[in-house]
C-alpha cells in the first residue's frame, strides 16, 4: 500500500537529492514516502500532482529559492544549507550535511506533526512514531483558543440578534455608533435645528441618518393633514424603509428638538459593513430593533383604533338615546304648554264675553216682553190678531223645512195659488179654513194690506225668537267656558252624577241632530267630587260619542251602582268604532280641531276626562268595535279627590 504521507526532495543537484532521499528513507523507515523531483521538474507541480493523487505533502526539502506551491495547503519548507551557513528566514527548519538519521527524523517529525495538526489531524494516527508531542500540544492549545474565540463570537452574534444579552436599546445603539466611529474614523456630524425638516416624504434617499441626540417625528401627509406615525418609536436610524425597499422616502422626518446626526451614504455604509463585521452585527441589531419597535407601534395603533371605534359607537348610541328622550320631553312640554295656553285663552274669552252676553240676554228678554205689549197697545183694530202672530212666532219655534213644504203643497192644492200658499204657510196659516176666516169679506187691497201686516209681525216674532235662542246659546257657551276656567275652584261637594250628565246633554243638545238619546238611570247616591270637573268628563265623553256618530244613531247613557261604594257611568255610541291601533293612545294628549271647528276642551277631551277621573280615584275604560263604543267611568262614592293642578288659571275678579 502506498503511504499517503510524502516528503518531497527538490534539490538543485539531482545527485544531492537522491543522496538526501536515501538518508531520509533510512531515517523515516516506511512511515513516509520520499519523492525526489527531477531536475527539469518544478517542485510545486510535483506537490500538486501528489495532492491530487490523494497524498498529503507536509514537507518539501529545498536548497535553492523557495518554491511557490499552489493550493491552500502550503507544505513546511525544510532548507538544506551548507554547514555553517545562516538559516533561510523563509524556511520552517534548516538542516546541513552531514546528516544524522536521528536529527533528520526529529526535524521531519516536528514539521509533519505541525502540518497535519493544522490540516488533517486524522492522518497523525498513521505516523504515531513520527509525531512530535511538543508540537502536538502547542497545536492543541491553538485549536482550543480558536474554538473558544469562535464560541464567544457566536455568542455575541446570537446576543445581538435575539436580545438575550440584556442590553437596552440605548446601549446597542451606543455600541453601533462606537463601531461606526471606529470603522469609519469618526465621520462628520450634522446639526438640524428644532422644527427643521430633515427628510421629505417622496424625496429620493441616498443614505441613512444615525441620530445621536435629540428627538425626531416621522409623519406622512394624508389628505392635506400631517399624520404622525412615530415619535419615540422612530428609533435612531432615519431612512430605514427607504433603504430596505430602495424607494423614495416613505415618511417625512421633522426635528422636534435640535438633532445631531451622522449622515451615511448607502455606499459608505456598505463599505463600513464590509470592513467591520462587528459593525454589521450591531447595525443589524439596531435595524431589527428599530423595525420591531415600529411594527409594535403599528399593532398598538391598530388596537387603539379599534378601541376608539368601539367607544365612538357606544357614545353615538348614547347620544341617540339622549336625543330621543329630549324630543319626547319636548313634545310633552309643548303639549302641556298648549293646554295651559288654551286654558288661559278660554278663561280670558269667558271673562270678556260675560258682561256683553249678560247685557244682550237682558235686552232680549225686555224686547220679548215689551214688543208684543207695544203692538197690543197700538190702537190698531187688528192689534190683538197681529200680536198673536208675533207671539206665536216668538215662542212657537220653527217648523222643519220638510214639514213646511208638505203644508205648502196641501194648501196650494186647496187654494189653487202656490204663491199665496207659500206666504200663508210661512206665517203659520196652514189650513184653508183659517185663511177663509181671516180674510173673509175683505177687498183685494185690504187682503193684501192684512197679509203684509201679518208677515211683518211674524217676522218680528221670528227675529225675537232667534235673538232669544242665539243669546241663550252664547250665554251657555260662556258659562261652560267659565266653568272650565274655574274647574276645581268650586271645591268638593256632594255631587249628583245624573244631574251632571243631563247638563252635558243639554249643553250639547244643538249637536245631537237626529241622534236619539236613551237614558238608563238607576238610583245612585251622591258622590264626593268636584262638580265642575266631573261636568267636563261628561261633556267630553258625550261630545266624543256625538262626533263618532256623525249626526245619527242611538246614544245610550247608563248610570248605576255596581256596589254600594261606587257609581258607574256608561256612555255608549253606535258609531263606526275606534281603530284598535288608536285604542291604546285614546287617552293620550292629542290636540285636534276636528273639521275645522275649534271646540274648547274637546280636542283634549279624553285626556282631560282621564285626568279628572284619576284625580277622583276612579277608573275610566274604553271598549270599541264597529257599531259599539263604550266608555265606562267608575267613581268612588266617598273619596278625597285631588284638585286640578294650576292649569286653568282664569282668576275671578
Amino acid at each position, binding site marked *: 500500500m502506498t503511504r499517503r504521507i510524502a516528503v518531497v526532495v527538490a534539490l538543485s543537484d539531482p545527485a544531492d537529492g537522491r543522496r538526501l532521499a536515501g538518508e531520509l528513507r533510512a531515517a523515516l523507515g516506511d512511515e513516509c514516502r520520499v519523492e525526489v523531483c527531477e531536475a527539469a521538474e518544478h517542485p510545486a507541480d510535483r506537490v500538486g500532482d501528489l495532492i491530487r493523487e490523494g497524498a498529503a505533502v507536509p514537507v518539501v526539502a529545498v536548497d535553492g529559492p523557495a518554491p511557490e506551491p499552489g493550493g491552500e495547503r502550503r507544505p513546511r519548507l525544510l532548507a538544506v544549507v551548507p554547514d555553517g551557513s545562516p538559516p533561510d528566514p523563509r524556511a520552517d527548519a534548516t538542516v546541513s550535511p552531514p546528516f544524522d538519521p536521528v536529527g533528520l527524523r526529529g526535524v521531519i517529525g516536528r514539521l509533519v506533526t505541525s502540518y497535519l495538526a493544522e490540516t488533517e489531524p486524522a492522518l497523525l494516527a498513521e505516523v504515531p512514531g513520527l509525531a512530535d508531542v511538543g508540537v502536538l500540544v502547542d497545536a492543541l492549545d491553538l485549536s482550543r483558543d480558536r474554538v473558544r474565540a469562535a464560541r464567544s463570537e457566536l455568542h455575541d452574534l446570537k446576543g445581538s440578534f435575539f436580545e438575550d444579552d440584556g442590553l437596552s436599546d440605548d446601549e446597542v445603539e451606543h455600541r453601533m455608533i462606537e463601531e461606526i466611529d471606529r470603522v469609519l474614523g469618526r465621520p462628520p456630524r450634522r446639526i438640524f435645528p428644532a422644527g427643521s425638516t430633515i427628510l421629505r416624504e417622496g424625496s429620493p434617499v441616498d443614505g441613512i441618518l444615525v441620530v445621536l441626540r435629540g428627538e425626531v417625528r416621522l409623519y406622512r401627509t394624508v389628505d392635506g393633514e400631517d399624520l404622525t406615525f412615530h415619535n419615540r418609536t422612530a428609533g435612531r436610524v432615519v431612512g430605514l424603509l427607504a433603504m430596505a425597499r430602495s424607494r423614495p422616502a416613505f415618511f417625512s422626518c421633522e426635528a422636534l428638538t435640535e438633532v445631531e446626526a451622522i449622515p451615511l451614504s448607502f455606499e459608505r455604509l456598505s463599505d463600513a459593513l464590509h470592513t467591520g463585521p462587528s459593525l454589521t452585527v450591531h447595525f443589524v441589531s439596531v435595524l431589527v430593533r428599530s423595525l420591531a419597535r415600529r411594527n409594535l407601534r403599528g399593532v398598538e395603533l391598530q388596537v387603539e383604533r379599534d378601541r376608539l371605534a368601539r367607544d365612538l359607537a357606544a357614545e353615538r348610541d348614547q347620544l341617540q338615546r339622549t336625543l330621543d328622550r329630549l324630543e319626547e320631553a319636548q313634545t310633552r312640554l309643548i303639549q302641556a304648554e298648549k293646554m295651559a295656553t288654551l286654558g288661559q285663552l278660554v278663561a280670558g274669552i269667558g271673562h270678556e264675553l260675560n258682561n256683553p252676553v249678560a247685557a244682550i240676554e237682558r235686552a232680549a228678554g225686555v224686547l220679548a216682553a215689551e214688543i208684543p205689549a207695544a203692538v197690543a197697545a197700538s190702537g190698531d183694530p187688528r192689534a190683538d190678531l197681529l200680536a198673536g202672530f208675533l207671539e206665536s212666532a216668538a215662542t212657537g*219655534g*220653527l217648523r*222643519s*223645512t*220638510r214639514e*213646511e*213644504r208638505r203644508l205648502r203643497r196641501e194648501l196650494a192644492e186647496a187654494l189653487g195659488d202656490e*204663491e199665496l200658499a207659500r*206666504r200663508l204657510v210661512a206665517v203659520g196659516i196652514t189650513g184653508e179654513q183659517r185663511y177663509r176666516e181671516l180674510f173673509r169679506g175683505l177687498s183685494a187691497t185690504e187682503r193684501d194690506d192684512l197679509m203684509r201686516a201679518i208677515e211683518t209681525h211674524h*217676522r218680528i216674532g*221670528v*227675529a225675537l*225668537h*232667534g235673538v232669544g*235662542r*242665539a243669546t241663550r246659546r252664547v250665554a251657555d257657551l260662556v258659562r261652560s267656558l267659565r266653568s272650565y276656567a274655574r274647574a276645581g275652584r268650586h271645591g268638593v261637594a256632594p255631587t249628583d252624577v245624573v244631574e251632571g250628565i243631563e247638563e252635558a246633554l243639554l249643553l250639547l243638545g*244643538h249637536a245631537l*241632530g*237626529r241622534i236619539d238619546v236613551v237614558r238608563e238611570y238607576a238610583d245612585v247616591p251622591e258622590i264626593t267630587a268636584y262638580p265642575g270637573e266631573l261636568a267636563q268628563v261628561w261633556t267630553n265623553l258625550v261630545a266624543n260619542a256625538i262626533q263618532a256618530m*256623525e*249626526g*245619527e244613531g242611538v246614544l245610550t247613557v247608563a248610570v248605576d251602582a255596581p256596589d254600594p261604594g261606587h257609581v258607574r257611568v256608561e256612555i255608549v255610541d253606535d258609531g263606526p268604532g275606534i281603530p284598535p291601533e288608536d285604542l291604546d293612545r285614546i287617552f293620550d294628549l292629542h290636540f285636534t280641531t276636528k*273639521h*275645522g*271647528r275649534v271646540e274648547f276642551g274637546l280636542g283634549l277631551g279624553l285626556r282631560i276626562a282621564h285626568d279628572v277621573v284619576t284625580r277622583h280615584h276612579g277608573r275610566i275604560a274604553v271598549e270599541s268595535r264597529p257599531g259599539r263604543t263604550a266608555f265606562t267611568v267608575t267613581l268612588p262614592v266617598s273619596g278625597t279627590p285631588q284638585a286640578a293642578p294650576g292649569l286653568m288659571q282664569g282668576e275671578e275678579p
Partner: protein
Amino acid sequence: MNRVVILVLEDEPEVRAAVLGDLRPFEGRFRIEAAADAEEAEEVVAECIDDGDDLGLVLCDHLLPGMRGTDFLVRLNHRPETEAARKVLLTGQAGHDDTIRAVNEADLDHYLAKPWDPAELQAVVRAQLTDFVVERGGELLEYVSVLEGDRLLEAIRRRAWDR
C-alpha cells in the same frame, strides 16, 4: 212654468230664517226653497226639476249634518240639470282646503263669510242670478225690476241686434 229656484241650504233654523228674511226682495219673482241638510236638498232639487223649474242659485253652508256643503256643490256640478246653477258658499268655518276644493271642483261662483251683511248678500244673489238668467236664455224683461236691470236691458238689446 219654468221658474228660477233659489235654494238655501243651512242646518241651523235661526240662521236659515235670517237668510230667508234677507231674500225677501226676490220673493214672488223666484221660487225660494230651503233645506236643512244635503239629503233634503237633493229632494228639493228633484222636486223642482219635476215641476219643470230651473235651479238658479244655491246658497250653501259649508258644514252640514251628513254631507258637507262642498260635497253637495260638487255633486250638483256633475249633473247636467243643475250644472248651470250659480253656487255661493255661505260659511264661517270653511278651512283653506275646503275652499280651494269648492272653487276648483264645484266651480264655486262666490264665497260669503258669516256673519254677512244683508245688502252684500242681496247684491251677490242679484249679480249671480242675472248671470244665470242671461246665460239660460228665455224671457229677461220680467227680471229687470229685481235683478241688475242695466245688464239685462243691455242683454236684451244685444239679442235684438243678433236677431
